[in-house]
C-alpha cells in the first residue's frame, strides 16, 4: 500500500472550472487518478472532462463518495474553501496555489490538525504515486514506479530528482511536495514517518533548501531511530543573504536555517549528503537501490 494515495482514494478538484483546474483534471485522469468530480461555487450542475461539478464540497462528498481534494482555488478564497472541505469530512487535502497569506495558512494548519485532516502545501506540486495516481500538477512523464520515496520543499526540484532517477530506471514509491512556503500544512518529519512505515519504500530522498527548521527537525527524526537509508540535498549554497530586519526569528531559531547547518545536522543523524543532485545516482548504486 503506497502512502497517501491508494485504490480507495476518490478525488475531487476544487476550482475545477478554472483554466488550470480543468487542464490539470484532464492530466490527473490520464495518469489514472480516480477523480470523481469537482467543486466551483456557482457552477454546480455543469461538467468538466465529463465529471460532475458541484456548488459545495458537502454535496460533492454526498454524491461521489469523495475522500480527498486538490485545490486550484484562487489564493484569496483558500481559507474559506479549506474550512469547508475539512467540515465536509475530507481527510486528505492538497493545496496547490501560491501566494496565500501566511496568516491564513497558520489558521488552516491549526484547523487541519484539530480535525485530523492531512494537508499538503501551499505552493506544492502535490503528491504522485507512480503508476497509481496523482493529486496536483506533477508532470507524469518524469516519474517511474519503484521503491524510492522523495520529499521535496521545492516543486520543480522534485521533478528534477525523479527525472534523474527515472532516466536510470530507478523508480519511486511516492513523490511528495511539502510546499515551499515558510509555514506548511504538514512538516517534513511527519512525511518521513509515512515513508519509514511504508512497505513499498526502501529508501528516502529529502530535497530541502536554505531557511527554516524543517531539515533540522527531520535530522532529529532520523537520529531517533529511522531505519531506512536517507539521502539529502539542500539547495541554496550561494544564495545571497537577505537583508534581515528584526531579531525575533534569530532569538527563537538560533543558528538554524543555513545550508551548512542543515547538512551538518542531517549528516550527524546518519543521512547521506548530496552536494549536487546528480550524486543521487552514486548514492543509489552504493545502497543497492534499483
Amino acid at each position, binding site marked *: 500500500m503506497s502512502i497517501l494515495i491508494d485504490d480507495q482514494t476518490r478525488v475531487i478538484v476544487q476550482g475545477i472550472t478554472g483554466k*488550470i483546474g480543468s487542464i490539470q483534471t484532464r*492530466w490527473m485522469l490520464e495518469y489514472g487518478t480516480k477523480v470523481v468530480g469537482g467543486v466551483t461555487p456557482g457552477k454546480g450542475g455543469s461538467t468538466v472532462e465529463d465529471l460532475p461539478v458541484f456548488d459545495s464540497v458537502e454535496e460533492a462528498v454526498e454524491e461521489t463518495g469523495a475522500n480527498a481534494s486538490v485545490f486550484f482555488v484562487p*489564493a484569496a478564497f483558500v481559507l474559506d474553501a479549506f474550512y469547508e472541505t475539512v467540515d465536509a469530512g475530507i481527510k486528505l487535502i492538497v493545496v496547490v496555489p*501560491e*501566494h496565500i*497569506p*501566511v*496568516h491564513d*495558512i*497558520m489558521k488552516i*494548519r*491549526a484547523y487541519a490538525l484539530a480535525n485530523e485532516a492531512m494537508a499538503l502545501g501551499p505552493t506544492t*506540486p502535490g503528491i504522485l504515486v507512480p503508476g497509481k495516481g496523482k493529486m496536483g*500538477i506533477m*508532470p507524469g*512523464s*518524469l516519474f517511474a514506479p519503484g521503491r524510492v520515496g522523495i520529499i*521535496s520543499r*521545492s*516543486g*520543480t*526540484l522534485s*521533478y*528534477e530528482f525523479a*527525472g*534523474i532517477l*527515472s*532516466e536510470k530506471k530507478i523508480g519511486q514509491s511516492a513523490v511528495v511536495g511539502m510546499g*515551499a512556503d*515558510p*509555514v506548511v*500544512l504538514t*512538516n517534513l518529519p511527519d512525511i518521513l514517518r509515512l515513508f519509514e512505515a511504508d512497505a513499498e519504500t526502501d529508501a528516502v530522498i529529502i*530535497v530541502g*533548501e*536554505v531557511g*527554516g*527548521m*524543517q531539515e533540522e*527537525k527531520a535530522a532529529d527524526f532520523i537520529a531517533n531511530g529511522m531505519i531506512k537509508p536517507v539521502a539529502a*540535498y539542500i*539547495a*541554496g*549554497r*550561494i*544564495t*545571497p543573504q537577505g*537583508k*534581515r*530586519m*528584526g*531579531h*525575533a526569528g*534569530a*532569538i*527563537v531559531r*538560533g543558528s538554524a536555517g543555513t545550508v551548512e547547518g542543515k547538512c551538518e545536522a542531517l549528516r550527524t543523524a546518519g543521512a547521506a549528503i548530496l552536494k*549536487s*543532485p*546528480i550524486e543521487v545516482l552514486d548514492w543509489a548504486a552504493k545502497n543497492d537501490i534499483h
Partner: protein
Amino acid sequence: MKLYEYEGLDIFEEFGIPVPRLGVAESTEDALLIAGEIGYPVVLKAQVLVGGRGLAGGVKTAETPEELEEISGTLLNSEIKGLPVHKLMVCEKADILNELYMGITVDGFSGKPVVVVSTEGGVNIEETARTSPDKIASFYCDPAFGFYPYQARMLLRRLGLSERLLTLFADVLVRLYRVFSQFEALIAEINPLVVLKTGYQGGLLAVDSVIEVDNSALSRIKRPLPELTERIENPLERKGREIGVTYVDLGGDIGIISSGAGLGMATMDIIGERLRPANFLETGGGITEELLYKCMELVTMKADLRAIFINIYGGINPIHEGARGVVRYIKEHKVKLPIVAKALGNHQEETWEIFREGGVHVVTEAPTEKAVDRLYELVGDE
C-alpha cells in the same frame, strides 16, 4: 514588505503604543526645523530597511543645531550596510532608565505566531538570547484564538516582572499583537521599548519599530500602504517585481531563468561551481509567452552577460508558450549570446522544437549538471 521605522511608529501611535515626538527629514534644513520644534537634544536615525543599523553608525544624538547639521550632512546620502539613506528620522531623546524587548514573528515549523520578550533589550538582544536565555521568554500563540492580556501577563511573570511594569508591558504587548495581526505581519518588533526615568504617558516608550508585512496579503490590508516596488532600491530587482518574478542581482555574467525557487537555487549552486551567475530569477507558476519575453528583457539588461541558462519544468507552467516568448525576444532583439535551455515535462517536445528553431541549445536530459556542462562547453572560462 518592510516598513520604515517612522511608518511603524505612526502605526504604533494609532494603536495606542506610546512613541516619541518625531519628524521625517529628507534634507538638513528639514531636520533643523523638526529639531527646533521638538527641542534639543534630538536623536537622528537613518531610515534604512536593514537590521543592525545602530552598530553600523546610523543612529546619532545632536545636542545643538551645529551638531545636527554635521551629523545630518554625513548621514544623508551615505550608505548603511549597502543601502542608501534617503531619509532621517528626527526624534526626541528619551531619558532612559532601562531597555526592554518585545517581538512577534511567524514560527515556520509550528505554524504559529511566537511572542518573544526580554528585560534586556537593545542592540545586543541576540547575544543575550545566547548567553542568558533566562532573560528571554517566549510564547507560541494559537493563531485562531489570538493573544490576550492574561497570556501577556503570564509570559512577563516568567521574566520576574510585577506590579505596574508588568501591566504596562502587557498592555503594549497586546497592542503590538494587534498590529501584527491586522497588518498580517511576518514580524512586528519593538527594540528597545524603554522605561523612562521620568514618567511619560505611563512610563514606557517605543523608540524603534520593525514591521514586515506579508506581500501575499498586501492587497487586502485596508490601510494606505506605500507601493512595494518603490521599496526596492535595485532597478533590476524592481523590474522583476513589476513583471511578477523574483529577481536577485548577483555579481556574475551568466543570466539564469528558472521556474521554481528551489530549482533556481540549485541551478545557481551548480553553475557557481565553475561559472558566475549574473542573477537569480524564478518565475513561480505563472509562465506565459509574455512573461518569458519580459524575463529575457530583464536578464539581458545586465551588461557583460556571456550566456543565458534556462531551466524550466512543465508541471503547472505551459513551457511551450514560454519558449515562444524567449524565441520572439531573441529574434526581435537579434540576441547573439549563447542560450542553453533544459525544459522537461508537459509539452516538452513542442518546447524543444520552438527553442531549437530559435537557435537555443536544448538539453533533454534531467540532470542540470549535464546542461551546465553544455553551457561550459559554449562559454569556457573567462
